[in-house]
């Protein structure tokens, strides 16, 4: 009789422990705190001169992202809606030491890209944005960031159609280093209209729009 009681107590204890472990594992699976960052780098026209700044931003991001996060760099050229335009991509390993090695390799790849990049004739920002959305949705990151390193002046090649509505729910769209063009200096309204146009596109798609021109304020990216 006593043995039975003991067995019963033991089985109850095992059951409680199993339930606790399952619940904890459930919690561990449900929470998704990972970040996904896709940075679009404009390589059209004279904007290639700004690429060293882009490299500095990428390095900052590499230093900020943690194990489990995803990062990709895509170029904006004549037709950006293509996997070929993804310069480098990585999902950092869970272990910090392996993640550090991956970061070093990523940095090397970006440095090679910056040194060898050739400017494109057209600027397909919308295509790049669509590619970024697709990639980040596949990555399954908890927080999604698309950084657009461009002057935001879109120039589509003949025959390219980009009237697809953006689905940017839960996306943070951050425009970086939006330089003023020669025409903007003459007529600032053009610059404002350009920025406003992209803000409307981003927010119209359900995303959050931000503009960071001062690269000293990069710590605001993930705030």
């Amino acid at each position: 009789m006593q043995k039975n009681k003991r067995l019963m107590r033991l089985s109850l204890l095992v059951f409680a422990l199993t339930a606790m472990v399952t619940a904890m594992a459930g919690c561990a699976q449900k929470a998704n705190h990972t970040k996904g960052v896709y940075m679009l780098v404009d390589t059209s026209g004279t904007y290639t001169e700004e690429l060293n700044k882009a490299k500095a931003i990428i390095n900052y991001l590499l230093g900020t992202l943690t194990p489990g996060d995803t990062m990709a760099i895509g170029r904006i050229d004549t037709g950006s809606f293509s996997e070929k335009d993804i310069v480098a991509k990585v999902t950092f390993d869970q272990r910090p030491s392996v993640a550090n090695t991956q970061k070093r390799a990523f940095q090397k790849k970006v440095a090679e890209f910056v040194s060898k990049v050739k400017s494109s004739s057209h600027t397909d920002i919308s295509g790049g944005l669509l590619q970024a959305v697709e990639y980040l949705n596949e990555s399954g990151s908890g927080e999604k960031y698309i950084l657009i390193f461009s002057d935001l002046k879109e120039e589509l090649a003949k025959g390219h159609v980009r009237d697809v509505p953006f689905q940017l729910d839960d996306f943070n769209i951050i425009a970086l280093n939006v330089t003023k063009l020669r025409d903007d200096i003459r007529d600032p309204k053009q610059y404002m209209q350009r920025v406003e146009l992209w803000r409307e596109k981003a927010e119209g798609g359900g995303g959050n729009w931000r503009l960071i021109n001062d690269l000293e304020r990069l710590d605001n990216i993930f705030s």
Partner: protein
Amino acid sequence: MPDATILFNITPVPFLSVLVWIFLSIAAMYFARRPFHDAMASLGRVIHNAMRVAAASVKSAQKRLDVRNREVLLAAGMEQAERRTEREFERIGTAVERNLKAYPQLQRQLRENLLRLEDDYKQSAEIPQGLSDWVKVIDAIAAIKPSGDPMVANILEDIHNTLKEQHKIALEGHRKAVSQRHGILSRMVPQWRATDKTLSGLEKAITDLTARSQAVDRCMTEYETVRIQSDAAERQLSSSSLTQFFTSGLVLGVFIIGAIINFNLVALPMSEMVGGASYIGAFRTSDVAGMFIVCLEVVVGIFLMDALRFTRLFSVIGCLDDKKRTWFFWILLIMLTILAGVESSLAFMRDRIAADMEALRQTLAGIEPSAVAASKIPTIGQMILGFILPFILTTVAMPFETFISSSRTVLGMTASWGLRALAFFLRLAGNLGYYLGRLVVNVYDLVIFPALWLEALVVRKMASASDEKNAEQDGSANRKTPMTILEEAAPCKKTND
């Protein structure tokens, strides 16, 4: 939406309208005065009584809590006194065991010493033989007067020589005997000293036992004071409890800082083991794992202290028999040492990961990686810290136990003060409600004072009219005719007719 200005337009002149409204209002209030007074008096009484009842209830709860607090405090004091007395008894037991265990041997030694001393004394007491009887003969011969006879002179010469020889032999014998007695006496000296030393040891042991017994007496007196549940004991325990609460709280705070440092040592390397991207709820799994290790060390430390009987947080451990408890202690100590070793290696790993991260940051920032200092002292320091901290954290059990036991009393006292304050505020609210009701009644009367004044005037008039009427009636009743006066002046004489 009705326009409020319509109220001022009931007559062509707004001022008149206002006067009319005031008059009507005062009239309405005058007629509603009695019910309003009654209502306000009732409300005041309701508030007053309700608050008094509530205050009485709270006061009763506070008294019950006070009794409970007293019980808890005295129970804690009793336990403490018991522990102290028990410890003193253990000490006295150890002292008795240590000092008096050798008592039979000591007694035997003393007896042997005394026997030896007695023997020596007897030996030293033997009196050497006196001079033989022939000395008297010689004395008799020596008394013979010289006659000048050479034969007698020769005989006397021989006797003299013999006497000298005999004297010499006797003196030597006497010296030898005295020397032997001195030898025996000098042999007695170390035995005296040994006896003295033994007796000194015994005296010291007895003094020690006396001091211990005095300490036990003190403990027993304290215990008795707590047992009879005197007010003095309660006050003393209460004060002691507050002091212990704040002191142990302070020490616990220091330990918490130590635990945080410990946690920081293990959290980063744990991400290398359990992954840095998984979460349990809102917390990183690596952080939870690091905290788990620190908590595990604290728990093992608490068990260890209980096994050593330094604390009594888990009575089951304290109640184990000594053999099992010793086994338990050694198992816990081994576990703690393993945990300390693990933490030390984690601290080493942390140092490596931190260095790697720093190098990466420098590379990303475009800075030439600085030459890493060749010194391994920081690494060794971290490893030593990682090894020592778990052992230091084990002692948290003692302030923790004190904090828990004293917090019961302190929380009880705080709750009692809170209830007392609540009872006071309830009584205050009751009185305020009662007097506010009276104030409102007075203000009400103040507002309708024209009507009241009018009423008083009318009542006075009516009263004076009534008085006059009554006076008239009384006057007519009291007015006496001359005949009546005469009748009163001349009393009626009763006749027999």
